[in-house]
């Protein structure tokens, strides 16, 4: 479902009742999966839950356009689920759902009516959380109060952050009304808006309904609406004042000479409106303006909540100056590292000190280079005969970095797990020595960063940044072929690291001696460390991979199935994954277990028939896999030649 462009953070009026929810939503949008996961927003209908939910989607997409974002209501999710079950495509449904980076699910209170959906949602939420993907849900009540909800799901939904939205107070109602009137381009007198805000709508939708009615009436009437007229129109209450018509008549009749007290009251009202409200409005408008520009306005909001009246002009000037400095700092930082300029401290005038020191660190090159991916560790790495030596060497490096095998060079064809092993080393080093700076990135990114630094004339900064790292792990070093400048920089870095006894690690598709396009001064240095090779996974390794992949999908399978899949020819971990995916694609959505027949149907593309050929296939020793190449391409069922001849004879 598409996001509604009207629902953005810029158009969300933050009040006392929605302050926490809005802050949490913004934090989630700024870094999905990293802060509150899942984020569960609850509150009565019409208080802005859907607005916040969609605003998260917009902001997250603005910041990371490649983010796979899905916004849908629970009903839509249920419909999709049912359709996939009916079409036998449950696995495709699960895959597509789990691959979403940011799932925004609205109105989950209806879960009580869908028991099967509860299990599916639990599975989905857990799978997404496990890989750091963000889930945000809204509901009209907290998870514990949704009737007939699976206890595990309640725990799962409550496990991130539960935050409620409350009905808007007077100021928030007034701010919402002003914004709505501005959006419609309609001029409504402030006194009328105040009257509408005073009526006290229970929720924002009701409030918007009220202003819509006012706008509609004003559209058909030539005379401006009065506060009393507005009250009568919206509540049916006749105001205390004798004027009963909802609108001031065009030629206003001369009012009766007011008594002295009324005149005094009127004068005081005017003064209060000009002074007290003007002060409030100034701060309120400043809050809206800065929030619209994406800055945190906690300091100004505190002013509105305080009992005393501050020096508004000075406070606003101070805030403006702080924002100006933040902008300047962010611009300076952007020149060095565009990604660092998006840091949250540059959006919070209260965190000016932090922003200053952060900017200083960036300029000095202290911001660390890319770290290893969190998900790739030794636990998820399948060990076997094909990688035994490499894993042992990698663990030795982790135990004593910079000493034994420096550099560690991992060579092997694509898909054999080089990248995983390299990142696992990085993560193990980080876990063992918190505070260590581990640079773990692909040679491609390394080159791109260097080019950007050269382009911006800050090569020294780039060098400092990498030289401050404790460990340098470069993936796919073969990509540096022909890139002389990058090789030269790497050569210098290599020497600096080696001299200081800091660990280096590289991966490539070939051993150093066979790497074309790389300077001998580099390849010889690579060889001076330890070169380990990864080969295609053998059958036991493939069986273990299959087991893990099926377990990760929550699919039960007999050992027979695992052995069948492991026996398929596959020269890499990726190929094994492809096989498992193919097998699962034909699985009956209703069943929890994968059978050999299903797997065979999916992979070999024909129904299982008891034949001698199958008997033979089951006995084909695994060692023949390589010789046969692709099992699917071998003809096992030759037609009966006699039948064929008779047929042609006829």
């Amino acid at each position, binding site marked *: 479902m598409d996001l509604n462009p009207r629902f953005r953070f810029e158009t969300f009026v933050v009040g006392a009742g929605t302050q926490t929810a809005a802050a949490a939503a913004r934090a989630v949008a700024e870094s999905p999966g990293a802060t509150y996961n899942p984020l569960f927003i609850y509150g009565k209908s019409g208080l802005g839950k859907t607005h916040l939910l969609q605003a998260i989607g917009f902001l997250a997409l603005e910041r990371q356009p490649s983010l796979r974002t899905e916004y849908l209501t629970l009903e839509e999710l249920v419909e999709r689920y049912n359709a996939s079950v009916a079409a036998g495509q449950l696995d495709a449904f699960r895959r597509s759902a789990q691959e979403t980076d940011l799932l925004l699910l609205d109105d989950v209170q209806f879960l009580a009516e869908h028991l099967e959906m509860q299990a599916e949602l639990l599975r989905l939420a857990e799978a997404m959380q496990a890989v750091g993907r963000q889930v945000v849900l809204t509901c009209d009540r907290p998870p514990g109060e949704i009737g007939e909800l699976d206890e595990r799901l309640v725990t799962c939904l409550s496990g991130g952050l539960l935050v409620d939205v409350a009905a808007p107070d007077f100021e928030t109602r007034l701010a919402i009304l002003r914004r709505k009137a501005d959006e419609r381009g309609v001029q409504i007198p402030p006194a009328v808006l105040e009257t509408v805000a005073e009526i006290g709508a229970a929720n924002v939708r009701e409030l918007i309904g009220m202003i819509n009615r006012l706008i509609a009436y004003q559209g058909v009437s030539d005379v401006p609406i009065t506060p009393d007229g507005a009250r009568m129109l919206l509540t049916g209450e006749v105001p205390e004042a004798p004027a009963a018509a909802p609108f001031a008549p065009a030629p206003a009749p001369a009012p009766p000479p007011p008594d002295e007290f009324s005149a005094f009251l009127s004068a005081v009202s005017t003064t209060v409106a000009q002074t007290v409200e003007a*002060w409030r409005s100034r701060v309120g408008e400043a809050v809206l303006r800065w929030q619209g520009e994406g800055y945190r306005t906690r300091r100004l909001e505190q002013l509105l909540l305080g*009992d005393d*009246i501050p020096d508004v002009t000075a406070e606003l000037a101070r805030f403006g100056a702080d924002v100006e400095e933040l902008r300047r700092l962010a611009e300076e930082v952007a020149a060095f590292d565009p990604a660092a300029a998006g840091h949250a401290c540059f959006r919070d005038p209260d965190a000016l000190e932090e922003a200053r020191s952060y900017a200083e660190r960036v300029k000095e090159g202290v911001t660390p280079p890319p770290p290893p991916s969190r998900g790739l560790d030794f636990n998820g790495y399948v060990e076997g005969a094909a990688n035994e030596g490499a894993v042992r060497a990698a663990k030795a490096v982790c135990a004593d970095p910079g000493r034994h095998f420096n550099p560690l060079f991992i060579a092997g064809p694509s898909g054999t797990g080089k990248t995983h092993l390299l990142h696992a080393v990085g993560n193990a080093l980080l876990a063992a020595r918190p505070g260590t700076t581990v640079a773990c990135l692909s040679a491609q990114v390394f080159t791109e960063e260097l080019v950007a630094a050269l382009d911006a004339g800050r090569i020294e900064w780039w060098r400092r940044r990498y030289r401050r790292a404790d460990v340098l792990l470069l993936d796919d070093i073969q990509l540096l072929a022909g890139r002389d400048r990058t090789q030269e920089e790497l050569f210098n870095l290599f020497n600096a690291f080696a001299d200081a006894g800091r660990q280096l690690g590289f991966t490539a598709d070939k051993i150093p001696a066979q790497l074309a396009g790389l300077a001998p001064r580099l390849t010889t240095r690579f060889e001076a460390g330890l070169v380990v090779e990864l080969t295609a996974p053998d059958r036991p390794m493939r069986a273990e991979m299959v087991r893990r992949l099926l377990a990760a999908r929550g699919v039960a399978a007999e050992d027979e199935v695992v052995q069948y899949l492991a026996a398929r020819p596959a020269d890499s971990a990726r190929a094994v994954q492809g096989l498992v995916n193919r097998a699962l694609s034909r699985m009956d959505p209703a069943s929890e277990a994968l059978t050999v027949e299903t797997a065979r149907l999916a992979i070999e593309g024909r129904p299982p028939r008891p034949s001698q050929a199958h008997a033979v296939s089951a006995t084909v020793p695994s060692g023949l896999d390589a010789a046969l190449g692709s099992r699917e391409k071998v003809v096992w069922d030759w037609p009966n030649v006699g039948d064929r001849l008779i047929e042609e004879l006829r």
Partner: protein
Amino acid sequence: MSLVNFTTREITCKIVYYGPGRSGKTTNLQYVYSQVPSDRKGQMVSLATQTDRTLFFDFLPLDLGTISGFTTKFQLYTVPGQVYYNATRKLVLQGADGVVFVADSQMRQLDENLESLQNLHANILEHGVDIRTLPLVLQFNKQDLPPELILTPPELDEALNFRGLPTFAADALHGPGVFETLKGIAADVLRKLSEGGGGVRRL
């Protein structure tokens, strides 16, 4: 004293009528009280002697209802004008948001006016308040008396208003000028809000 409370959405203004004895401070309050509609009328507290001289102070609460979302209340006080009640005057002045100095327009009362004005300055200073930040207006009362007995507003302005404060000619007994004065001081007090700093500045 908090003039505007945004939490409870209340505006409370304390206005003190100051001036020499028998200048008409209580009369001002009585006239205001007589004009308040019955549904808004609070209790006017007046502690007076048998000869109607104010013994301690008069107090008139004025509930103006909700203005711009704020429950607005004015508290009008008078001080005893007689010189020997200075302690009471100081007490009543405490926390005042604005002062109306009610001057007696009679020629023979000029010295008393000056003395009382000096007394006001001294008492305000004792409370640690900067007189320049305290809203203050002058009312030249008893302008209904025969012209030969009183000084004209320009003459009184010349004699008393060396700070260039807003002035109002009044006849508190019959009403003219009473609400003009009250409006004047109320506007001054409320306008202080827009300048920030919470109204009156302490020294």
